């Protein structure tokens, strides 16, 4: 255990926590928009997987990680629009249609990988950017200010999301539509337009999250996300549909994950226990979810499709 309390390990643990939190944070922030407007998109993980593959494949072919990120975003937009069509316009049962999108993403990403790549080839990763001045601070610099641009962007997206949700007319429309779509409709707010926008935002973020994950790891394999998209959905509940809460949840999950990884590397957790330890982040997140989420109320119209005159 004493091996753990060294500068190098502690810095690596915290920095790892932040890095591991990023895909979850991005996916959960996007999903927050959808859920605040009343749409539960269970397809996040599928969109992440296709985003991850398209990001990986683009980097593999072009060698440019930013093209890879853009490819993930592009796929996210397309699948976000498709999800909007299914759950907003076609009024599908949201508890089921999202699982269809997930299964599509899971199967399609693997199929494309087998067909186009076959054996995994590592790709280049996002370059690390040391923030001048800040990254030289002992301990803290290594933990917080020596990451890739994607990490900084993901955390900057938190205040941006807060601003959009709380301070703009679009955000007010989102909150209204998620709480009482009939009332919003009676005042001339187009419920379907708002929901198309939020679900597409959610898809875009999920696509970006997938690409960020693949390019961060520098690899793709079947089911790369390992259900992180579902954890992201849980984090939206955990965060009580607020960006700050969602960020706290993503960091908690990232931290537990990072801790387990370090413990395994240092042999604090015996090898034979590693499968059980791998479940720890999920279990801790679920426990936290049960305790925290009970105090807050979900948007009233969550999972309820809207049609006028019912």
């Amino acid at each position, binding site marked *: 255990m004493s091996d753990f309390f060294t500068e190098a390990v502690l810095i690596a643990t915290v920095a790892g926590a932040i890095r591991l939190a990023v895909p979850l944070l991005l996916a959960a922030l996007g999903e927050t928009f959808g859920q605040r407007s009343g749409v539960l998109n269970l397809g996040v993980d599928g969109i992440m997987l296709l985003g991850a593959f398209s990001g990986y494949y683009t980097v593999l072919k072009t060698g440019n990680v930013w093209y890879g990120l853009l490819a993930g975003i592009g796929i996210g937009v397309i699948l976000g629009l498709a999800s909007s069509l299914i759950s907003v316009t076609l009024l599908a049962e949201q508890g089921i249609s999202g699982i269809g999108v997930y299964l599509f993403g899971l199967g399609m990403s693997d199929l494309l990988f087998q067909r186009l790549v076959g054996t995994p080839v590592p790709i280049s990763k996002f370059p690390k950017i040391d923030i001048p001045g800040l990254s030289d601070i002992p301990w803290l610099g290594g933990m917080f200010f020596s990451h890739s641009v994607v990490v900084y962007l993901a955390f900057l997206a938190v205040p941006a999301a807060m601003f959009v949700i709380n*301070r*703009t*007319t*679009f955000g*007010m*429309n989102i*909150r*209204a539509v998620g*709480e*009482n779509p*009939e*009332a*919003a*409709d*009676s*005042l*001339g*707010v187009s419920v379907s337009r708002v929901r198309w926008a939020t679900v597409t935002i959610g898809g875009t973020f999920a696509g970006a999250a997938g690409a960020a994950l693949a390019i961060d790891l520098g690899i793709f394999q079947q089911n790369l996300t390992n259900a992180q998209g579902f954890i992201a959905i849980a984090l939206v509940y955990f965060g009580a549909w607020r960006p700050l809460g969602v960020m706290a949840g993503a960091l908690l999950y990232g931290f537990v994950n990072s801790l387990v990884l370090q413990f395994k590397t240092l042999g604090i957790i015996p090898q034979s226990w590693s499968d059980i330890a791998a479940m720890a982040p999920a279990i801790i997140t679920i426990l936290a979810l049960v305790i925290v989420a009970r105090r807050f109320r979900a*948007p*009233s119209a969550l999972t309820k499709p809207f049609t*006028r*005159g019912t």
Partner: protein
Amino acid sequence: MADVPMLEMKGITKRFPGVLANDKVDFDLFAGEVHTLLGENGAGKSTLMKILYGLYQADEGEILLNGTPTLITSPTAAIEHNIGMIHQHFMLVETLTVAENVALGLPSSRGALTDLDAVSEKIVQLGSQYGLEIDPEATVWQLAVGQKQRVEIIKALYREAQLLILDEPTAVLTPQEVDQLFDTLHQMTADGRGLIFISHKLHEVLALSDRITVLRQGRVTGYTTTEGATRSSLASMMVGREVKLAPDKPDVETGSAALEISGLSVIGDRGNVVIDGIDLTVNEGEILGIAGVSGNGQRELAETIAGLRQAESGSITIAGTDVTNQRPVDVRAAGLAYVPEGRMKDGIIGLFTVAENLLLIDHNSKEFLDAGLLNFEAIRTHSQDLVDEFAVKTPSLDTPVRSLSGGNIQKLILARELSGTPTVLVASQPTRGVDIGAAEYIHKRLVQQRSEDTAILMISEDLDEVFGLSDRVAVMYEGEIMGIVDPKKATREQVGLMMAGVSQEQALA
């Protein structure tokens, strides 16, 4: 009054599958007047107003605004034509502030960013102008019902509505709040606005309107100016025959205490105290009416008596048997019959047939069992008897109950509950949303049951009903009984004050 009406609806027809909701309806409104649209549930009032507000499109007919034929294709278009609507169920987003609710859907002076400070300023100004004071920064779920209604009216005024549709705006208000609302509405007509008032509370219609149009089954069946109209003349126009608004009540000698509640406290769904140490006694052969604005613990009281909700402390006895926190089936065995407030949710199983619903409380009775299996012949005979006796209008005993009208469903529930000659009947909102004909019948049955020595606890928001039927009236406010009054001596105003939390001594002073 101006020469050209601000609104003319001519020959409006609207069909829904299997229903003619509006049949060549004509309706008009002049600036500065209140024109009431009166009719039973399902008469087509709401449909007509939804057409005017752009929520539905008429199949035939035209709408003229200030003499110009106009197509209103959406609520947005209606708002642009200065039409506002106060919906029966508040159209408010509970988690947003008052200012956000008002600003919703309107362009902001700051483009993509909200301009709530400017909105708040104007809300305060409108509030002081029309007696609608409200804190623009309060979150809507924190507001009392009367305040929520103010927000609705401010929403319409903020959008510069000249023509305002008020769909049953008084349903959830205390009599004092109604008076306040009417003051505001009078001020609005004095400013040259036109109001369409939808209601079935006849004394309010008479107090507020200039003219009254009556709808029945989608057609205009009556028109009158308020002068010369009376409650019973209006009721007759609505139903199409003579109606008795208050049943004749024979004198009944009250017997011993049948339902005794003492020191009862109950915790509500949100973990707060909803019933706070109340004592009530209902005697055989009497109707105890419970008046109060809904949400003051009445529903919880009924549920606790019926065994559907835990009592925290105190006791409930029926004919001497302690039934506190007993299973519903045991409470029924002790002599309780229960007509719940949520008719569709708690009173029936919508997909079950008429016969099955009539059997719900008796399905274990030997009378309907044959070697442990249901005896369908006995069930059918029993059901047919009840349907005939209570005049339930149904195509057959095998019709799913949810396709019946509200009045017939309520008669069916009453038939089931009264079939076993109960000692105590708890009836919550027995005629809410029920047509006048059925309400008249239900009232008659309640009075008849009283003559058969049943103790009746009747919970109602309808003061006419409470005053017309009760032998004693208990007023409930925030989980407490504010006092018990004699309906022959107390006035509506006194009871109204108590409904708003004023003590009995002060209210009667």
